[in-house]
C-alpha cells in the first residue's frame, strides 16, 4: 500500500530523512516512534506529499507520489490525515467541516454528505455537536471531529501526526478509543505518537526512528520487551520509567 525505496529528504543543508526503506501493507497499523526531530512527522507528511522527497521513490496506492504526472488531488482523496493541532476550519460548523471535501472533491450531494457526516459523528461519539463551531468544543472533541472529517472521504489510508500531543491528559483517552476502533475495522494506519500504551496495544509493527533514519522495525511485543538497538533501549527507558 505504501512503499518507501531509498527515500532521502533535505531541507537545505539539513538531511531530514536518510535512506528510508519502509513497506506498509493494506490493513496494517504502523506506529512510528522516536525522539523529537527524528523525522517521524516528515516521513508521514511525505506520504500525501505535504512534503516532497529529494531522492528515492515513494509509491502509495500504486501511484508514484512525486511523479510529475501524478494527480496529487486524486491521490489525496484516498488518504485521510489527522494533525496535532486538529486544523479544523474555524469559520465552519462541525458538519460543514466534514461535508466540505465530500461535496467539493467527490461531488456527492449535500444531503448524502450530511448523512455520511452524521454517521461518522455517531461513530466518534459526538453527533450532538454537529452544528457547533470548533471553538465551542474541547480539544478531544475537536480531534474526534478531525478524524470524522478524514473518514468521511472513505479513504484507504489514515495518517495520524501526533494526534494526542496537543490534548490535555483527560481527553487523550477518548481520541485513542476512536483510533482503536478504526484499527479493528481494518483501516491502513500510519500513526506518529508518544502514546506507548496505544502503540503496544494496537500496532502491527513499531518503527523506531532517530536522526532521520529508521533504526528498528519490529512487532510491538518484541520491540517493547527486547529492543535490539541501543538508542531504542535508551529512548524507551527514558519515556517508560516515570
Amino acid at each position, binding site marked *: 500500500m505504501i512503499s518507501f525505496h531509498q527515500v532521502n529528504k533535505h531541507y537545505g543543508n539539513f538531511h531530514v530523512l536518510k535512506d528510508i526503506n519502509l513497506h506498509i501493507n493494506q490493513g496494517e497499523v504502523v506506529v512510528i516512534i522516536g525522539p523529537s526531530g527524528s523525522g517521524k512527522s516528515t516521513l508521514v507528511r511525505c506520504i500525501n506529499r*505535504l512534503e516532497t522527497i529529494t531522492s528515492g521513490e515513494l509509491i502509495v496506492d500504486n501511484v508514484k507520489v512525486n511523479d510529475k504526472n501524478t494527480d496529487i488531488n*486524486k491521490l489525496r482523496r484516498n*488518504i485521510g490525515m489527522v*494533525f496535532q493541532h486538529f486544523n479544523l*476550519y474555524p469559520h465552519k460548523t462541525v458538519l460543514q467541516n466534514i461535508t*466540505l471535501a465530500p461535496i467539493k*472533491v467527490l461531488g456527492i450531494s449535500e444531503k448524502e454528505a450530511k448523512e455520511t457526516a452524521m454517521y461518522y459523528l455517531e461513530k466518534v461519539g459526538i453527533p450532538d455537536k454537529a452544528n457547533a463551531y470548533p471553538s465551542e468544543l474541547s480539544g478531544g472533541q475537536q480531534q474526534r471531529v478531525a478524524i470524522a472529517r478524514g473518514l468521511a472521504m472513505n479513504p484507504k489510508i489514515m495518517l495520524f501526526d501526533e494526534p494526542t500531543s496537543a490534548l490535555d491528559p483527560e481527553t487523550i483517552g477518548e481520541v485513542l478509543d476512536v483510533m482503536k476502533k478504526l484499527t479493528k475495522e481494518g483501516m491502513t494506519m500510519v500513526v506518529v505518537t508518544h502514546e506507548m500504551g496505544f502503540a503496544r496495544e494496537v500496532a502491527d509493527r513499531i518503527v523506531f526512528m532517530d536522526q532521520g533514519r529508521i533504526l528498528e522495525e519490529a512487532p510491538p511485543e518484541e520491540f517493547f520487551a527486547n529492543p535490539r538497538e541501543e538508542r531504542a533501549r535508551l529512548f524507551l527507558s527514558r519515556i517508560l520509567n516515570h
Partner: protein
Amino acid sequence: MLDFSIIVDYWDMYMQGFGHTVKASLLALLGSLLIGIVIAVFRIAPVRPLNWFGAAYVEFIRNIPLILVVFVFFFGFPALGVRLDSFTAGTLGLTVYTAAFIAEVIRAGILSVPKGQMEAARSSGLTYLQTMRYIILPQAIKIVIPPLGNQFINLVKNSSILGVIAGLDLMYFGDLISSETFVTFDVYIFVAMFYLVLTVPLSLGVGFLERRLARSR
C-alpha cells in the same frame, strides 16, 4: 452662518453629484475588491510568473499618483482608439488604483491564516483554488476588515478625482455651483457634508461588522 438657500436652490445638482459619487464608489469598491483578491492570490500562489505579475501590479500602481492613473484612462485610452466618457474613465482609474492597496491588505490577511488550514484542506483533496475560496479567503477577509474599511473610506473620498475630468460627481458640481454663486466656502461645506453622509455610516458599519465577527469566532 451658512447660506442654506444654496442647498435648496441647487438641490438637483447636489443630488446628481451625490448620485454619481455613490455610483462610482460602489462600482470601484466591488471592482477593486475583486481585482485586489485576484492580485493578492497571484502574489502568493506557488506559480512564479503570477507572483511577478502581482508584485509588478502593486508596485507600479500604488507608487504613482491617482490622478495619473485616471489620466491614463481618460487621455491615454483615446490614443489607443478606446474612448471612455469621464465617469467611466474616472471610475476605472479609481478601481485599478484602489485594487493595489486592497491587494496588499488581503495578502496580509491570507498570510495570517495558520498554515495548518491550507494543509488540512489540501490533504482532503481540495485544489489550491478551492482551498483559497472556501477556507483561506473567508478567514483572511474577516481578519482584515478594519484595514479594508480604511481603504473603502479612502476610496469614497478619492472618488472626488472624477471632478478633475468632469466626471459629474459631487466635487464637479461643487465647482460648478461655486463658480455660479461665488459663495465658495458655503458651497464646499455642503459638499463635505454629503461626503460625510457616505463615509461616517461606512466607518460605523465597519466597526459594527468587526465587533459582530469577533463574537462569531
